[in-house]
């Protein structure tokens, strides 16, 4: 969407723009309006109230017409505010660009000076400058512009530094362009949006500051008056005739507020990070909006997912991340869920306990039954009591998954005490026991360590210890070994395998690695484009994959000691999740695809030996697919 489109969509910013435009137009036409002379005093008509004898806003302490003074004063305040913003932006940006573009010593010296100026309390510096130059509107303007220069210099320098070493600048340099030309034609156009943002967020400030200096008697001098000095003069009559204060004060408020509204709008429209709406926080639970009837689940297993659909709704698009998943996990069983990135395996795992970030995530259909309890659509408190107590998670990246500012001990103790009223000492002992059970050496010392002091493998052990804290029945491990070194991966896998045997844990293991599945899982489900395409006992599927996608996926895995074998990447790309094709989502990339594959939904059908596959022509051996 275009900049102006975005701005117009933001209703508050639009309101600010309208008010601002109205004020600017009013300021421009003020000399043409049939107003009384703002400076003509008439002491006989002092302190007239608004609407008294045809004076719309009344008169001030010298009998001057307030409406006229307000418009002339507003005009002056606006002019001074914008002028100082323009001066500060021009000089500050120039300094910032020079510092950022040349870098090195130039940068160092300039930025030291800027930091020095920023070490001053803002208004104090303006006061010192006015003290030196003497009171007066132009001097106040200079002072306010001067104290804002460091702000622009610092912001613009930062952006320039990031641009100065980009390819197009290097290219310009190689083509023999001079520095001045590079700055003007290559750097400046890229910096301008930032200058605009910085200006739009500071103009309001500068109007306030110049008005403030005038209020103190250091800005505009009588009889000339901007809004600030009008307020300053009215102050002595505040109690007897408050309208003389309220009129200019309210005007400043309206001007600054409309500018701030507009400035926020401009910033939101220009800042690409805010544009995508990425800055919205996930709610404690995934949103559930089920329109279809909820499927009945008769659950003999520990966890049964049926018809689970999770989507991401953003910017008017719907990404069908999970498009109807059925999965059963029995007590003590380890089920692998395997697929490429974007296949919906992690989203499936997070949907179970309502941990999919929402917005944008929405669960639109399906049910998840855990030990007789329905999870999808359950209240927050129901889910919270189960989370970490009976169903625990292990996440992919242990560095980001642990809180950086609490010790691992504190985080473990918290996991325990979130569900059990354990006294602190007992919880501590239990936590140290957990650390030992995941084979962390010097558990007592590590208890007081922070995550950043540990290695990746160590951190993931902490993550596992945390998942074990309350002896859960089910652990959902979301690619727990993906971010680790291969040797560490093997350690973590054998640890999980041992723990599982000792404690009778059920595990859902999300991965994209067939090797991991083979080592750990009893059964495996293969996901593609948000649906399970094949499911069955691990050894059966590894020996003879029935779905062409499974076969292709396995062919991508290099094997040690198997001599030279052709590695076959799967041709094409996975389908886009907001425009899934009709029929089999893999048809586009499948070498066996036929007419019937693209016509209508293909259901998952059971084949011999507890296996199920979503393909109309599943029976062939793995070796055929590779060739």
């Amino acid at each position: 969407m275009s900049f102006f489109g975005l701005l117009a969509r933001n209703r508050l910013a639009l309101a600010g723009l309208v008010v601002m435009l109205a004020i600017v137009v009013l300021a421009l036409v003020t000399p043409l309006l049939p107003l009384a002379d703002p400076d003509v005093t008439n002491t006989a008509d002092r302190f007239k109230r608004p609407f008294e004898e045809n004076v719309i806003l009344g008169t001030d302490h010298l009998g001057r017409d307030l409406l006229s003074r307000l418009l002339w004063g507003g005009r002056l305040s606006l002019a001074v505010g914008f002028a100082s913003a323009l001066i500060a932006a021009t000089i500050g940006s120039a300094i910032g660009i020079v510092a950022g573009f040349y870098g090195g010593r130039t940068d160092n010296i300039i930025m030291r000076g800027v930091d020095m100026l920023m070490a001053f309390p803002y208004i104090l510096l303006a006061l010192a400058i006015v003290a030196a130059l003497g009171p007066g509107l132009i001097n106040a303007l200079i002072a306010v512009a001067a104290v804002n220069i460091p702000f622009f210099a610092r912001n613009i320098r930062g952006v320039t530094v990031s641009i100065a070493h980009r390819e197009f600048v290097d290219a310009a340099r190689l083509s023999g362009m001079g520095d001045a030309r590079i700055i003007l034609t290559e750097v400046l156009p890229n910096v301008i949006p930032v200058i605009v943002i910085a200006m739009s967020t500071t103009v309001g400030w500068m109007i306030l500051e110049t008005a403030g200096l005038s209020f103190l008697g250091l800005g505009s001098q009588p009889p000339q008056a901007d809004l600030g000095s009008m307020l300053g003069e009215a102050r002595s009559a505040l109690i007897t005739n408050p309208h003389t204060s309220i009129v200019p004060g309210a005007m400043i408020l309206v001007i600054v507020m409309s500018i701030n509204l507009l400035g926020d709008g401009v910033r939101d429209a220009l800042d690409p990070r805010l544009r995508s709406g990425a800055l919205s926080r996930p709610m404690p639970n995934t949103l559930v909006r089920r329109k279809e009837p909820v499927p009945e689940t008769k659950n003999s297993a520990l966890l049964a997912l049926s018809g689970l659909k999770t989507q991401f709704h953003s910017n008017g698009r719907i990404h069908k991340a999970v498009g109807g998943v059925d999965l059963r996990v029995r007590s003590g069983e380890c089920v692998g869920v395997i697929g490429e990135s974007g296949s919906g395996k992690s989203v499936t795992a997070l949907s179970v306990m309502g941990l999919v970030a929402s917005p944008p995530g929405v669960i639109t259909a399906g049910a998840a039954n855990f030990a007789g309890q329905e999870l999808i659509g359950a209240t927050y408190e129901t889910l919270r009591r189960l989370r970490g107590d009976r169903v625990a998670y292990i996440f992919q990246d242990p560095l980001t998954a642990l809180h950086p500012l609490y010790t691992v001990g504190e985080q473990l103790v918290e996991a325990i005490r979130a569900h059990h009223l354990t006294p602190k000492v007992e919880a501590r002992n239990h936590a140290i026991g957990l650390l030992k059970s995941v084979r962390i050496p010097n558990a007592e010392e590590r208890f007081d360590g922070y995550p950043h002091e540990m290695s990746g493998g160590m951190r993931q052990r902490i993550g596992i210890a945390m998942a074990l804290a309350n002896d859960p029945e089910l652990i959902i491990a979301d690619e727990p070994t993906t971010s680790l070194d291969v040797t560490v991966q093997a350690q973590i896998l054998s640890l999980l395998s041992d723990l599982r045997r000792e404690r009778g844990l059920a595990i859902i293991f999300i991965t994209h690695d067939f090797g991991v599945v083979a080592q750990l899982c009893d059964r495996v489900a293969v996901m593609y484009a948000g649906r399970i395409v094949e499911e069955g006992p691990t050894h059966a599927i590894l020996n003879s994959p029935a779905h062409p996608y499974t076969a292709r996926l396995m062919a991508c895995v290099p094997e040690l000691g198997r001599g030279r074998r052709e590695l076959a990447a799967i041709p094409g790309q996975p389908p886009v999740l907001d425009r899934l094709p009709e029929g089999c989502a893999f048809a586009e990339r499948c070498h066996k695809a036929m007419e019937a594959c693209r016509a209508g939904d293909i259901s998952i059908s059971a084949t011999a030996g507890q296996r199920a596959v979503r393909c109309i022509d599943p029976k062939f051996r793995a070796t055929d697919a590779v060739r």
Partner: protein
Amino acid sequence: MAGYILNRLVSAIPVLLGISIIVFLIMAMIPGDPATAILGSYATPENVEKLNRDLGLDKPLVQRYFIWLGNMLQGDFGRSFSLNRPVLHEVLERFNGTLILAGTSFAICSILGIAAGTVSAARQYGLADKAITFAVLLGISIPSFFLGMMMILIFAVNLRWFPVSGMWPIYGARDLSSLISHLTLPAMVLATVATGVIARLSRSAMLEVLRQDFIRTARAKGVRERSVIWRHALRAAMVSIIPVLGVQAGFVLSGAVYVEIVFQWPGVGRMLVDAILKRDILLVQGGVVFVAACYVMFNLAVDVAQSLLDPRIKT
């Protein structure tokens, strides 16, 4: 830790020197002759020359700077000609008043701003968020001198809840309760803008943090949502909020000028404005350097607080 503090203290020295140079240079820009300003336009040339010699103004700029700096380091900020007393005595006395006002305001804006920003982020797009966002917009758009005047009109003149101005009652005991009743309105007014700015930044810092993986971990652990917000998220957000508090302390300290004028509060800001209007340069110079130095020291304390909060900072 002690080493870290010492390190920060040493690194503050060039900043303090830079501040003194900037102030000195600004004051040296003053057109005209301070001696004439002091003695008035009817002074004889001999007297002007004698005063210039007494004040050391006949010496070169660099030498004058070092004399001024040396004197300041010995606690001699010069003598205010408009008040006819040592600058340092006046500044210290007035700074006391500013410190009470600005300190209270700073406490108000920190607590209120962080709380409002946190609630706002936790209830993003909800009613509380909208109300806070609007209040914040109003708060950062209203000139503090206008707000102060309106507060006086409403709460002091009409409702008579608080005194109109000053720091102490003219008659009566100078006890804590009378100080609080005098302090309430100006402290609130001074805190308004900073509260808005802090609330805004806290909100966006919280939104940033709430999207992080460790928040999902906390939720997956079954930690209560209240604890997720106020313990996990806010603690992490504080790392980016605290530097903002440091900057806002500067705004509160110098924004006190307006509030001191409106509420007739005996503080440094009002003293500075009077001194500027009377062109009492030594008083301005001394006051500005003193307050700026205090601000540098405060920011140093902020850095130390930051390092205590974030174990990842090497101390």
